[in-house]
């Protein structure tokens, strides 16, 4: 019950998070990686004489590729350039291989067409998932029209979900500005997974509300909506926390042991799922009550 009673506090917390995230994104912007911008990334390693970062940077400048060099690990460098042809890449490797023990660990080059397309597809997929979820919830809860119409369940869910997407994006805008962390297609994938997962939680609570509404009607115990929602939250609280907990445990393991390729990915998921669980329990269901009270006030 307490959660619903103190819902104003939670609304304020969420509002702060959302405003903060939107601010971070507007001021610092998201840092698109080569997946979206196009460009090339070359990861190299030296096993013998490791040249310093300045030396590497200096040797690349005459090639005019807008190269940026960043150290990776103990004896490697990540070199990012604008989109280059294969012969240009060969020229770059020739310049770099002057030192001993040079080897290429990874190379990626994405043309600007594919990059822009990836960006477009990402935005559209987020949009489509949001819409599908609204439709799905409206459909799944179609028999629950009292006191709040089923499509409003869907709308509330979407509102909570946008909150779940904005906060990780805000954090990554912060990280992007201060640590050079980039947004790639895996980040978008993480956002989509967060959407799907956050809805899990929300559905479980709404499902319980639906059932309690039915029981209340059958037993004619005249519980008011706020009470029913409060009870539903309490009943499902442990389950919500536990499920997210197991997923978060898996993600923490992945973050620590999983290797460079998926590290930022698991971070995005960690933030997203934590926020998602919070929004389902502390935001989504109390909003139901707020909506119902608003409806009541309007019709009086």
């Amino acid at each position, binding site marked *: 019950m307490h959660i619903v009673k103190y819902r104003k506090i939670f609304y304020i917390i969420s509002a702060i998070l959302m405003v903060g995230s939107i601010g971070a994104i507007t001021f610092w912007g998201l840092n698109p990686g080569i997946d979206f911008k196009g460009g090339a990334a070359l990861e190299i390693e030296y096993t013998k004489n490791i040249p310093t970062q300045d030396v590497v940077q200096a040797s690349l400048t005459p090639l005019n590729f807008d190269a940026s060099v960043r150290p990776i690990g103990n004896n490697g460098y990540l070199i990012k350039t604008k989109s280059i042809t294969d012969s240009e890449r060969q020229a770059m490797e020739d310049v770099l291989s002057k030192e001993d023990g040079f080897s290429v660990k990874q190379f990626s080059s994405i*043309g600007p067409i594919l990059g822009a397309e*990836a960006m477009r597809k990402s935005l559209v997929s987020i949009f489509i998932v949001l819409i599908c979820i609204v439709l799905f919830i409206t459909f799944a809860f179609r028999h629950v029209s009292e006191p709040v119409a089923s499509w409003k369940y869907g709308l509330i869910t979407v509102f909570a979900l946008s909150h779940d997407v904005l906060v990780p994006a805000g954090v990554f805008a912060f990280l992007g500005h201060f640590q050079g962390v980039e947004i790639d297609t895996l980040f978008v994938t993480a956002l989509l997974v967060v959407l799907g997962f956050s809805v899990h939680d929300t559905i479980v609570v709404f*499902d319980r509300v639906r059932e309690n509404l039915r029981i209340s009607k059958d037993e004619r115990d005249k519980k008011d909506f706020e009470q029913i929602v409060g009870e539903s939250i309490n009943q499902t609280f442990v389950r919500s926390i536990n499920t997210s907990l197991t997923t978060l445990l898996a993600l923490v393991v992945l973050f620590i042991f999983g290797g460079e390729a998926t590290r930022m990915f698991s971070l995005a998921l960690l933030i997203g799922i934590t926020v998602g669980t919070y929004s389902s329990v502390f935001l989504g269901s109390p909003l139901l009550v707020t909506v119902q009270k608003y409806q009541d006030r309007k019709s009086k």
Partner: protein
Amino acid sequence: MTKTRMGAILLLIAGAFLGYGIYASSNVPSSYFSKFPFQLGLDLNGGTHLTYKADVSKIAGGDVNSAMQSLRDVIERRVNLFGVTEPTVQVETGGALGSEGADYRLAVELPGVTDVKQAVELIGKTPSLEFRIATEAYKNATSTENMKLEDAFASTGLDGKYLQKAVVELDPTTRQPTVGITFNTEGKALFAKITKENIGQVLAIFLDGQPITTPVIRSEITDGKAQISGNFDTKSAQQLVRDLNYGALPVPIELLSTQSVGPTLGAKVLKAGIFSGMIAFIVIATFLIIWYRLPGVVAVVALALYTILNLVIFKLLHVTLTAAGIAAFILSIGMAVDANILIFERTKEELKRGKNLDSAIREGFHRAWTSIRDSNSSSIITALVLYYFASSSVVKGFALIFGIGVLTSMFTAITATRTLLLALNMKDGKISRFLFSSGILK
């Protein structure tokens, strides 16, 4: 009761068998199971992935598909010259939201090839269609195995750029499919000259340096038309016509993106993935047992069965594992627990309402099912959208493994967990109630 007990035992035996199979397929080379290895993606195995854009602007609408097929075949022929194990050459359409209408692409995957430069050169080469005459040396040779091309077949100067058209024809006498070719004006003249001077000789037609047919010239041909007959069935005749019509590279191509991963990095990523998978499983299992006690143990067994089932599916469907795919799998393990937790919490509630153990379990399943079904559906929607709109094979692989994970988690929760829990058939009593309740202090 015995039915569920038997069911549970069967489940455990099947699980153990498959589990051994999975272990054996990677670690015991002599076993039957090594016929089903895991398919590792480029970022785990090392290799190169190239994406080309095909310029179909000059090809008539109806011919585009056939041109793309032809392109695919040509590229595959060239790639095979590399001696790469299991290269993949696939036609991709830009599909929805591809740039500027339907965009046709070719995706080439070369596992284990790390010399990107060599790969790109070989694929991008302008191919050749040549007409050559067999030399005296070739005719007199007892063994042509070590003969060089130029010694065996002399160039005539007649090549693909003189070809105007090729069609499939039916030989009127033999009713066999043949290929009729028509040269353009200059080709006509050149062809007439060649055939006049070489009656009775073998005229070999080379595509990309490989002979595709070696007919004998019977007479001078002045109309610029030739009929190539050989052992063609309709299909090979059509294929040759396709190849000839589109010269060698039927469609001009442009390299859009390259990705290559060195083998040492790949192995490192794979190891990290497997390690984190195991740790994640152990951590989750510990949590489940501590919090849920006996049902927790059941959940861990169900989770193990779930993991095994997924791995078996990956092998049977040849799902390509990538770093992102392993992440998807680990994620789905964490989420698979969800269905179990829903059921346990419900069961606890029913116990509190005074039901006995057996009916509490059954009611718990029944009530939890709507929740499980609806909440997993949203994840399936996500997986479908991800799969369809995936801009790279990394994301596609992730979506596939994620989707499979969600489906199998629903399956194991309903079948494995239920069967195992019921099979326990505990007598109602203080001890069993303790074992079934949860939490640290209760």
